[in-house]
């Protein structure tokens, strides 16, 4: 067994026992990167030298007895977090050379916990996309089938974990950008409750929807990372000052007695039948393990996508106004005057998908359209949240497919935005309501592509999600299945 293929908790045992050093773990991970990165292209920037220094520092800390939550663990960061002194591009030309003078709060927390940063992972430009194809720095391939997309927008993070190019990774989720690529790449991805993990230093896409979360190889690693990144941050007004439980304490609680809501609106025509079968089987497994399934309804589900494609672009159109070629980032040299410089810099600096969403967002906020679009969408959003509040009176968590399809081919949906947007149809509602959601692998298609099972929970119920996910993972024997499939399919 190569070190790079292990989990955080497995490596921690070895580090504590003195069987391996952080330097050896990092070397193993970089050996893997050197072998597969050309094919997968999970990273925009590799941080090899600074990672070596971090690993050396981790080994020194271990020798002095200072072992922290992530000491010596190689972690990939989506290129959406500011890391002091390292280019932070957000997958865009307009930030191709931006070097922040500050660390995002999550980055600082990982640093404090002793983590080693492997590099900055690829992503859809400004996290706008479901396939990582809109990145200015080229697309990322799904390690399970290199002709397919890894999902998005955190496709680089998901692919890096799946391809063992890191031990775990962080992503961000505005409409499904953690859960959907986690499902498509066969890894665990958690989007926490809005306000649970600080957004400070996360390059904003849609401020009222964005949330940071982990990508891991199993549920235990997910709990370990959540223990590090969750918590109040005085630098964010929407950060919630609420005690953080020990998420590891939920891992072995089992599922007996939990009421699982099955929303009828999420099991509909249009979903890939293989996925429907696999998810139903997973729910059956949970029932056998003692969970009680209840039928529920989330009546405003069909409006989620329309609300999302108003609210997210509206906020984005404003959040992305700061990229104007004045203070940092790309500036067109051809600008004859200020207005011309603005237009040339932004038009050449942003890709098509980003420009499209800026236009939608600008339109729905503009004079005469605000009430019909932005206000209306915000009202329907309130109803979507109300649906969940009512549902959680009847159940402890909700189970759904993560994505209506498995990984699709590169280029398959790039010309049809509506088809692309439908990839997020089951994940967007959690961002609308601000609730947490997790995607865990629950099987494979006939083509050997991973399928994701999503659990949604009430506000700040990440613990319950981890509890159910861990119970499923164990009962279904996912670790063994995953290892077998990986050996059979990921032979590069």
């Amino acid at each position: 067994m190569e070190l790079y293929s292990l989990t955080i908790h497995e490596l921690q045992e070895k580090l504590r026992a003195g069987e391996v050093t952080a330097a050896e773990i990092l070397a193993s991970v970089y050996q893997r990167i050197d072998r597969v990165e050309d094919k997968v292209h999970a990273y925009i920037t590799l941080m090899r030298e600074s990672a070596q220094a971090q690993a050396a520092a981790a080994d020194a800390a271990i020798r002095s007895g200072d072992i922290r939550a992530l000491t010596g663990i190689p972690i990939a960061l989506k290129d959406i977090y500011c890391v002091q002194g390292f280019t932070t591009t957000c997958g865009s030309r307009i930030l191709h050379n931006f070097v922040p003078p500050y660390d995002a709060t999550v980055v600082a927390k990982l640093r404090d916990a002793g983590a080693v940063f492997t590099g900055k992972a690829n992503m859809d430009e400004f996290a706008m996309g479901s396939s990582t194809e809109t990145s200015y720095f080229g697309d990322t391939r799904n390690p399970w089938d290199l002709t397919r997309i890894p999902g998005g927008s955190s496709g680089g993070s998901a692919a890096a974990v799946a391809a063992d190019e890191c031990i775990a990774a962080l992503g961000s989720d505005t409409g499904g950008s953690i859960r959907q690529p986690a499902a498509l790449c066969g890894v665990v991805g958690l989007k926490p409750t809005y306000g649970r993990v600080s957004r400070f230093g996360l390059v904003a896409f849609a401020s009222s929807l964005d949330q940071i979360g982990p990508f891991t190889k199993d549920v235990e690693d997910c709990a370990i990372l959540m223990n590090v990144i969750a918590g109040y941050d005085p630098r964010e007004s929407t950060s919630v000052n609420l005690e953080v439980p020990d998420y590891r304490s939920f891992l072995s609680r089992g599922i007996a007695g939990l009421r699982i809501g099955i929303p009828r609106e999420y099991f509909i025509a249009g979903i890939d039948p293989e996925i429907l079968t696999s998810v139903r089987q997973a729910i059956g497994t949970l029932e056998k393990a003692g969970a009680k399934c209840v039928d529920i309804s989330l009546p405003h589900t069909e409006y989620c996508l329309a609300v999302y494609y108003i609210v997210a672009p509206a906020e984005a159109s404003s959040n992305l106004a700061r990229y104007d070629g004045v203070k940092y980032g790309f500036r067109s040299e051809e600008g004859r005057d200020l207005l011309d410089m603005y237009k040339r810099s932004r038009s050449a600096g942003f890709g098509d998908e980003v420009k499209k969403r800026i236009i939608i967002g600008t339109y729905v906020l503009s004079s005469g359209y605000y009430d019909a679009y932005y206000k209306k969408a915000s009202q329907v959003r309130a109803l979507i949240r109300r649906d969940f509040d009512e549902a959680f009176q009847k159940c402890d968590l909700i189970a759904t497919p993560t994505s209506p399809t498995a990984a699709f081919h590169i280029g398959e949906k790039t010309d049809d935005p509506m088809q692309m947007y439908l990839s997020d149809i089951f994940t967007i509602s959690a961002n609308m309501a601000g609730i947490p959601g997790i995607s865990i692998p629950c099987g494979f298609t006939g083509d050997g592509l991973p399928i994701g099972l999503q659990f949604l929970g009430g506000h700040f119920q990440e613990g319950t999600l981890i509890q159910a996910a861990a119970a499923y993972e164990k009962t279904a024997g996912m670790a063994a299945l995953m290892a077998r499939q990986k050996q059979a399919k990921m032979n590069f």
Partner: protein
Amino acid sequence: MEFEPVIGLEVHAQLRSDSKIFCSCSTQFGAGPNTHTCPVCLGMPGVLPILNRKVVEFTIKMALATHCRINRENSFARKNYFYPDLPKGYQISQYAYPLAEAGGIEVEGDENRKCIGITRIHMEEDAGKLIHDEHFPASYVDLNRTGVPLIEIVSEPDIRSAEEAAAYLRRIHEILVYLEICDGNMEEGSFRCDANVSLRPRGQEEFGTRAELKNMNSFRNVQRALEYEIKRQQYVLEAGGEVIQETRLWDDAQGVTISMRGKEEAHDYRYFPDPDLVTIVISDAWIEEIRGTMPELPLEKRERFLRDYQIPPYDAGVLTASRALADYYEEVVRLCGQPKVASNWVMGDILRFLKEDKRDIRDCPIPAASLAEMIRLIEDGAISGKMAKEVSEEMYRTGKPPQTVITEKGLVQITDAGALAAVIAEIMAANPTQLAQYRGGKDKLFGFFVGQVMKATQGKANPQLINDLLKKMLP
């Protein structure tokens, strides 16, 4: 036709917090360019605003002082537009839900006191500064001012003349400075004003088309610009023309307002609630706590001075022009017990000295206690009023207490009746002719003898005592 001007004013006042509204950078004026800047106020990616509590408290103070309704829930919105002095591409401001609404203040109007309504007071962030290059087609951006807290105070269109506008502005300025929430410095831009002006035939209800005036950076310019604009619109209307709704800039050098027509584009600010900031909820307890720290406001103080000190309205106005001056005056009165005399000295010599030196009352070298003591010495007859002039000048120059000055200058008044009687007797003996004439009925010569006594005593004799003794001894 007779026209009536309708004027509304928008005041932007910088708040005197130490740090900016959404980050911890200093608000101090005059630092090197782009040195009071951080990732937040530079609008770097990923950073987030956190509201300065003091900005809310200062705004509540202004709302209380101007009798506004305080909205128990209020919030920030984003005003979206591109300009190099606006690093985020939007200004964080209050829009649909301002902190305060529906208030008003009393001002001295054209005829008598009248109330000018205040539509709203809201918080927002200031923009940076753009310096245009005169020789090269470029501008330079300094973002130190970006994020300095502002309140915008919007008046109702209740103002009917340029003078009234100036009176309203002075009152707003005075209140802000009294509350110590704005330094009121117009040259540094801490207090700025825009005006909306229209004319309507007297007696007509509905408003005419208005012009917005900008670029007036003193009370005087606001008044001049309004006077000009009122005349301009009057000519336009009288000639059968129409006033165009537009922004006009005041040109101080030429004394005219100039149209910005064609230079401003149709704005669509796309306001929407700022998702990065949460609702501000103001409890009654918080308001009462702030009310407890409110100073007496100028108008109340003026009325109390009239009532308690029985001084003329003019004096009360001058003495309450600033809180520090009023405090100084009150301290002098408390120590000497003579309100009118104290008022004469403060308004006379003290303000004259300070004005000559361009000094603030807070930097006055004569402590209130010294001035009070000097007034008591006059009252006791220890020095004459004339001597006091000399004493006050010396006190101002050296900061020494009056007794020290009097001793050092040998200014002690002769109040010993026996000694003075001896001097008078000598003078009577030396001037037999004048004495005879006085006794023969030439009353005017009384002054001659006073002068002689003053001369003989080098002005140190108590004038009242001289009078009394002469009246006794001459006949």
